[in-house]
Structure formats: C-alpha cells, structure tokens
C-alpha cells in the first residue's frame, strides 16, 4: 500500500517507457526549470551580495558587485546591537506569533475542515459562503474597524491583537476540507465509532494522523503568512517591544527613505531581511521530508 516508498522496476521496454519512480532525467526539462529558478534567485542574489556591504559601499557600488570591504559580520553584529538590540526582541516576538499562530490555526482548520467534510450540521453551505465571501473584503478597509473593536476589548498593543486574527486561516480551512474529504475514508471513521469512540476521539486518533501531510502544508502556509504579516501589526501595535520583524525592519527602512533626518541604515535593513528569510528556509527544508514521504492520501486512494 505504499507505492511511493517501494521503487519498482518497470517493465522491460526501456527507453520509451520509464519506471514510474525513477524515470530518465530530461535535460530539457531541467534547463527550463532552472531558468525559472534563476528568475526566483536573482533578486535573492542581490540581497545576499548587498548584505555583505557597508552602508557606504551600498550607496556607492554597483548592486551585483561586491563592496570594497566584506562587512557581512559587521552588519550582523550591528543588526543585533542597533537600538539597544531590539532586533532580538522582534525575532522572539515573531517566533511567538508564528509558532502559536500557525499551530492553532492549523488545528482549527483541521477541526473545521473535518466537520465540513465528514460531519453534518445545519448551515454548512452558508458557513462556507460567508467564509469565502469574507476574505474577499479588502483587509485594508477592515483594519480600522478591527482596530476599533480590539481597542474596545482592550486587546490593542498586546500580542493577542496579532494572535487572534492569525488563528483564522480560511485558505487552510479550505485545504483541510478538501484533503479530509479525500484522505480520510468514511468507513474507517464508522468503524471507530462502532467500536465506541466518541467524535473527538475519532478525529484525534483516526483522522488527524491521516491528515498529517495536509497539516504540514497548511502549517507552512500559515507560518509564512504570519511571518510576513505587516499591515495588521502596524495598525494594532504601538509599542516596539511587541513588533514583529516585518514592522520593525520597515521602520528602520523608513528612517532613511522618508524626508527628514532619520538615520540611513539600508545595510541593516538588507541584512536583517536576509536574517529573517533564513528561518523560513530552514522551516521549509525541515518540513520537506513530509512532502517527500509520499502523502498518505495516495496510500488511501490506492
């Protein structure tokens, strides 16, 4: 039942036919993919190169050329020292928002997706329509009503102002619904219930493990979107001690890019941006294993 984990030699007619799990590599397809990867990497190359430059070199050398002096370490040290080391605080905040937010939102999405796919309740269609409809409302215009509501509840300028909205991931709910419908055989659930398991127990013991790969997908998307969340914290938080990285970095950038006598610290903006992307890369590569290990979806279907 695990086709992907057992590479099988395919039938004899080598050449035109391929083994499903290990086909002949194609240079053409590789090159075309590589071209697109180049498009993806070029701007990032700029980021890496410029993170190694001092501020003076940044304004005076060509973007893709190295600076006169290799200042990456200086920049990193300065990022962590600038404004009394507030960067570390932002990093911790962001981790808090991301870990708690992504975990809870994934769990809620799984719970909701499961209910939509496997349980009946009145108003299911209305519920879906409202959820999908609501995300069509431009978030910018909701920011102020959200702010006023949260201020009313005394939540502004606290981590809850960021966490509560991040618990909701409509796209995650949608994915979970779709995955649950496909990956969790209703027969299995029925069997568990006949054995006397309650709904919650059935969900936790039977459904959730089957949803692991889908959960990783949703977790990853939640992770990234909370990590990049900018507008909401900008409105909700006024205390830099609660800022996430995005707002903090943007504020550093604005110091020098708006009219006034703010400090010009583009080298710190760029280096800190690079530093913020690295955890995401690690998270992605760390979770890659789950993508790799043949989604149990396939197993169930087969």
């Amino acid at each position, binding site marked *: 039942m695990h086709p992907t984990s057992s590479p099988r030699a395919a039938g004899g007619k080598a050449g035109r036919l391929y083994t499903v799990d290990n086909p002949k590599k194609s240079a053409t397809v590789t090159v075309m993919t590589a071209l697109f990867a180049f498009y993806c990497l070029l701007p990032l190359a700029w980021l890496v190169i410029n993170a190694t430059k001092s*501020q*003076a070199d940044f*304004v*005076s050398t060509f973007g893709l050329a190295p600076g006169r002096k290799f200042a990456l370490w200086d920049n990193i040290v300065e990022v962590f020292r600038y404004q009394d080391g507030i960067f570390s605080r932002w990093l911790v905040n962001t981790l808090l928002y991301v870990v708690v937010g992504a975990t809870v939102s994934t769990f809620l999405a799984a719970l909701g997706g499961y209910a939509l796919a496997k349980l009946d309740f*009145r*108003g299911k269609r209305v519920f879906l329509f409202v959820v999908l409809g609501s995300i069509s409302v431009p978030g910018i215009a909701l920011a*102020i009503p959200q*702010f*006023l*509501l949260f*201020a*009313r509840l*005394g939540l*502004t*300028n606290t981590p809850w102002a960021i966490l509560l909205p991040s618990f909701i991931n409509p796209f995650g709910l949608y994915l979970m619904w779709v995955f649950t419908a496909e990956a969790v055989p209703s027969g299995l659930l029925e069997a568990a219930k006949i054995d006397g398991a309650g709904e919650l127990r059935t969900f936790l013991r039977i459904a959730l493990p089957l949803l692991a790969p889908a959960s990783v997908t949703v977790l990853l998307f939640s992770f990234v979107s909370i990590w990049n969340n900018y507008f909401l914290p*900008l*409105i909700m938080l*006024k*205390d*830099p001690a609660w800022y996430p990285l995005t707002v903090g970095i943007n*504020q550093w950038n*604005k*110091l*020098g*890019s*708006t*009219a*006034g*006598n*703010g*400090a*010009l610290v*583009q080298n710190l903006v760029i280096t800190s941006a690079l530093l913020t992307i690295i955890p995401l890369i690690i998270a992605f590569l760390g979770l890659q294993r789950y993508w790799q290990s043949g989604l149990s979806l396939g197993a169930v279907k087969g």
Partner: protein
Amino acid sequence: MRLSRKVRLLCAALVPMFGLAACSGGANGGGDAGGGDEQVKITVWSWDGTVEKAVPGFQAANPNIKVEVVNAGSSQDEYKALDNAIQAGSGVPDLVMFEYFAVPYFAIPGKLADLGEFGADKLKDDYVPAAWGDVTVNGKVYALPSDYGPSAMFYNAATLKKAGVDKPPATWDEYYEAAKKVHALGGDHYIAQDTGDIFFLLSLIWQAGGRPFKVDGNKVHIDFTDEGTTKAVAFWQKMLDEGLVNTKVTGWSDDWNRTLNDGSLATQTMGGWLTSTLPERAPKAAGDFRVALMPQWEQGDKVGAENGGSSFGIPAAAPHKEAAFKFLEYFTHGAGLQTRVDAGAFVPNKSVLDSEAFRNKAVDYFGGQKVGAVLAEASEIVGSGWQYPPFFEWARSIYGDIASPYYTSGKVSLAQILEQWKQRCIQYGNEQGFQVD
C-alpha cells in the same frame, strides 16, 4: 435557534461600538496628574530619535514622572494612529510629534490642547518668528517647535567648479545660468532634481512672497495666482521646460542617494536638516558639499522659506497633560534641549542659533565650513505669514496624482497643475465642513 444566538452575540459586540461612533471624541476627559508625589507615566509618540536622548535627564530631575518614548510610525502612519486612538477612546498618548503642516489638522477640530493653559506663550521670544507662526492656529499655541527646516541650498562645489561655476549662485537668475553649465557637462548632470515635490515648489513660492493658503477659523482661501506664486512658478516652469532639472530621480530614493554620491546632482535646495543625513547618503562626496542660503529673487535680498520641520503637541484626550507639558518644555527649552542639539537636532530656538558654539563649529564633511552660521541665518530670514490648510496632509498626498502626468509627458503646465489641485482641494475641503474658495 443557532442563528438567533449568533445575532444576539453580534449585537452585544456591535452596540457599544455604534454608541462609540456616535459619541467619538467626547470620551476621556482625562484627569491631570504629574504635580504632587503621585507616580505618573507619560507616553510620547515620536519618530525624532533625539527626543529619547532627553529622557534620562528629565527623569532624574522629575523622579515621579516616567517617560516612555514610542515610535508609532512616521508622519501619516502616526497621524492615523492618533486619529484611531482618539476615536477608540483608549491608548491616546500624552505627547505627539507633528510636522508643522499637520498642526491645524488636529488643532481646528479640537483634538489638541491649547498650550497657553500651561504658560507656553511665555516661550514665544525664544523662537524665530516663522517657527512660532507654524504652531499657532487662530491665535492659540497648540504645539512647541522641536526641529526646524529652513530651506538652504546644499551644493556640490566640485561639480559646480567642473562646470565653470566658481561661486554658488546667489540669485535664481545666476542659478539658471549655472544650471545650463552643469547640464552642459553632459550625461546625467543636473543642477537639481524634481519629480513633483510639492514641498520644494511651496518653498520657492514662500520665498517669493506668495501666500497661496489663507486660513481664518473655518474659512480657507486658496489662490495660486498672487504675484509671488506666479513668479516662482514661472521660474521653475522655465527650468523644467529647458530640461535643466532631473525629473527621473525622486527624493529619498536609493537613486537619489547615488546621484548625491557621484556628484551628478549639483545642488539640492532643501530643509537644513539635510545636514545630518547627507554624510551617510553621499559618503563619497565628503568635502565637496557646502551650504548656502537659498538663491534670492532679487540681488541683495535676504528672504528665506521653510521646507519641513516638526513640533510636539498634547492631545485634548491625553491622560496626563501637565506632566506631558513638563517634559515638552524640558526638551524644547530646558536642559534637554542641548542634549538634543548635541545629538544632531536642528532647532529654531534663538538661544541655540545665536550661541557661539553653534555658529562656530566647523564641519569636516562640508570642508570645514561653519554650517551652523549659515543655517542660523537661513532660519532668521524665513518669511512670515505662511499658513497651511487643515487638510494639507490629504492635499499633498493627491498632488502627485495630478503632477505626475506632467513630469512624464510634459503636457500642460505647473500653473495648470496647481489650478487643478486647487479645485480638488476646494471640493474636498467643503466636503470636510470647511468653507473653501
């Protein structure tokens, strides 16, 4: 049944908000504190880094007041945050930074406390007159100036010399002649950059004696056809028409930093605060730049204008007004002022501008020039009587929409742009409850 519970839940959440919307602004009278021995904490919103430097000294002198300085965003972001906080009735800071043009926006609808109550009037004589005018609305003081932007001409002496201009242009006519020589250097050499910078254009108008905005109570009068305005606009039109201005590089962008750095931008007429940030933007041009007064409209004149600058005011809904004023006075007049000046602040206080220490300090980046003396003079000669309409924040945000097609296609003229801008302002201002014509 499910539905009705949901509806009830929503109503419970919404009703207080509706009530809130109906009586916004009325909330939070705010008992003052900060006198006696009671411990008070005040919140200051500032994107001026020097204010924070004054905190330790103030707290040492006033142990019962704790000051928390917060960067709540720059300019527009902060103003909106303040509006939100006032509307929500919670989280209103005690002391807030405003650019000069934003003071009437908050003062006229009654969102700022009249600082006269705290004796701010006494401080008037320490300021250059124009700065005091900036914080006075309909005869009352609503903020105290904290930094100043007398317009000055920063020029790259090396570039000018290469172009055959040996001394900085003293009049706009000389400036025009110099512009042609600089442009003749070829390539991307220009004497100035402008991509529709309203503050620059207004500083030209200001200097030429134009006063396009007249504000009296709720009445706003806009006119871009007075003599000074016409003169300034016609001059700049000529510069643009003859291609003497770089219209590709926008201020504060990375490209701008680079044109300053490589010497292809010969002059930048801007607020005096450029002094502190120019060295980091143009490190390679160290020693090349100098500062001069703005070129004059007539030989022998000495008139200046403003370009930027900011102040601090106390919201009417602030919880600790008295303590806030104490701190405000400390960093705009008391011992905190010098701390800020040492940290790079440029202030309109005569006590600072007239001091020997300020005037005689030679600055290496500017080739040893005594920059302070030039800027002090530029501050003192700023023409008075300028006013901003209370909706200027909005007006400047849409100016680019109107001006941009001109800067890319060259169609229409600056005068037509200003006329169109005026019409939009009139419409908007009247919608907002002012009487604008």
